[in-house]
């Protein structure tokens, strides 16, 4: 045991050192082979860390017939469903600082246990990713949500965590919706009037941006003339798909109602909070330096080549307090390519095409129906 402990401590010391360096790395700069060279040793230590700290993970590791060859996506991966059914954590109870919940209204929600360190890492990484797209300065910010979303007590939902994380990028935060999730038109008009001519930041969950904001403005024939502004939204397209709203219609309608606004979707989930995949101007999601994606055949879980739709598997070196470094999602998507997106960003880029049929209803924006 002592020997094992010593080895563990040594590994973690190496990890810390490399980690510091990685956190300061440019977000979309490395070509895929270089990126793998950087991430592999970290992932290997992280794997040992979770095996050492989490009994459940150790069991999975033992049962998992995994290919120990040097590839990022070969490590044992946990289906996100497991985070709903079990308390998976690699810290002791007294180290739990915050528990994140997915905000599903039906069935169980995932529980993600964070210690202070992991929570800070998530904030730091989210900030680093967003700085790439927004710069370091903060903009007047309109949140397309109700202030009550963040005030609810008890465990924190992914939506509240998203709002809080993003609010670091704003100033003069203004919530566009009231307690009943209705658009407060006067408040929104005053906000745009007050910051007329300035670049503002808008943020909200995709379905709410559409349903509670853009469609309401449309209905009331209200138009604004924003300049050089940015809207970031996420949480999934499922409801918009049902309503047959295409990405193109979504963007166009936003620009019709609001004026000069750059629109960026993002993909992410509570199991890997902080690591978000931002949509570039070409309409593709990009992996940041800390994470990687693979696609698996939903039937036999074998890897699928680029362009083929399958289950999205995500690898991230940020999950330290819980064994979420390799997860198999219930989302379907495909990798478009690597290192050659015409937007210029390096690494893999991908599209999300929906959820696995029969997957339990879940997702950040799905709480509002």
């Amino acid at each position, binding site marked *: 045991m002592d020997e094992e402990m010593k080895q563990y401590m040594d590994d973690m010391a190496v990890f810390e050192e490399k980690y510091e360096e990685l956190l300061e790395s440019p977000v979309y700069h490395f070509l895929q082979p270089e990126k793998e060279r950087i991430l592999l040793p970290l992932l290997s230590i992280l794997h040992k860390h979770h095996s050492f700290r989490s009994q459940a993970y150790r069991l999975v590791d033992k049962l998992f017939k995994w290919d120990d060859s040097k590839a990022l996506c070969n490590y044992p991966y946990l289906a996100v469903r497991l985070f709903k059914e079990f308390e998976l954590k690699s810290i002791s109870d007294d180290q739990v600082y915050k528990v994140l919940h997915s905000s599903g209204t039906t069935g169980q929600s995932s529980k993600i246990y964070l210690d202070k360190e992991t929570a800070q890492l998530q904030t730091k990484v989210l*900030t680093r990713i967003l700085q790439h797209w927004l710069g370091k300065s903060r903009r007047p910010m309109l949140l397309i949500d109700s202030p009550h979303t963040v005030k609810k007590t008890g465990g924190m939902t992914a939506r509240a965590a998203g709002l*809080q994380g993003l609010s*670091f990028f704003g*100033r003069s935060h203004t919530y566009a919706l009231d307690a009943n999730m209705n658009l407060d038109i006067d408040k929104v008009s005053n906000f745009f009037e007050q910051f007329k001519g300035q670049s503002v930041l808008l943020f909200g969950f995709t379905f709410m941006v559409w349903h509670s904001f853009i469609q309401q403005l449309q209905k009331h024939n209200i138009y604004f003339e924003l300049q050089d502004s940015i809207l970031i939204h996420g949480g999934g397209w499922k409801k918009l798909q049902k309503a047959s709203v295409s990405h193109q219609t979504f963007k166009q309608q936003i620009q019709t109602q609001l004026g000069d606004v750059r629109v960026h979707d993002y993909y992410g989930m509570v199991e890997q909070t902080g690591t978000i995949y931002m949509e570039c101007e070409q309409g593709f999601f990009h992996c940041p330096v800390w994470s990687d994606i693979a696609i698996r055949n939903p039937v036999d879980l074998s890897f699928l080549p680029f362009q083929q739709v399958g289950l999205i598997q995500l690898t991230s070196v940020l999950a330290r307090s819980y064994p979420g470094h390799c997860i198999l999602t219930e989302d379907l998507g495909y990798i478009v390519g690597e290192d050659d997106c015409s937007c210029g960003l390096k690494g893999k880029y991908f599209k999300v095409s929906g959820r696995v049929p029969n997957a339990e209803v879940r997702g950040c924006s799905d709480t509002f129906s």
Partner: protein
Amino acid sequence: MSNQQKLVQSFSSALAIAQEQVQDLLAYNSIPEWDSTAHMILIAELEGQFDVMLDTDDIIDMSSVGKAKEILTKHGVSFE
């Protein structure tokens, strides 16, 4: 009012804590009152009080009262 007093007042009112609690070593997330929501209120308070514009790095780096002083000093506020 000295800048030190202004700082103590900003922290005390933004976090809703007693002025005596505002010590250099007081750290972000070390007390329930200083969570991420209060942090944004604090940032707005400091910006208003000292007439500075803090960027996202400043917000992330502001991990204690002492660190806040350091960051404000960088923005030209003196705590002599």
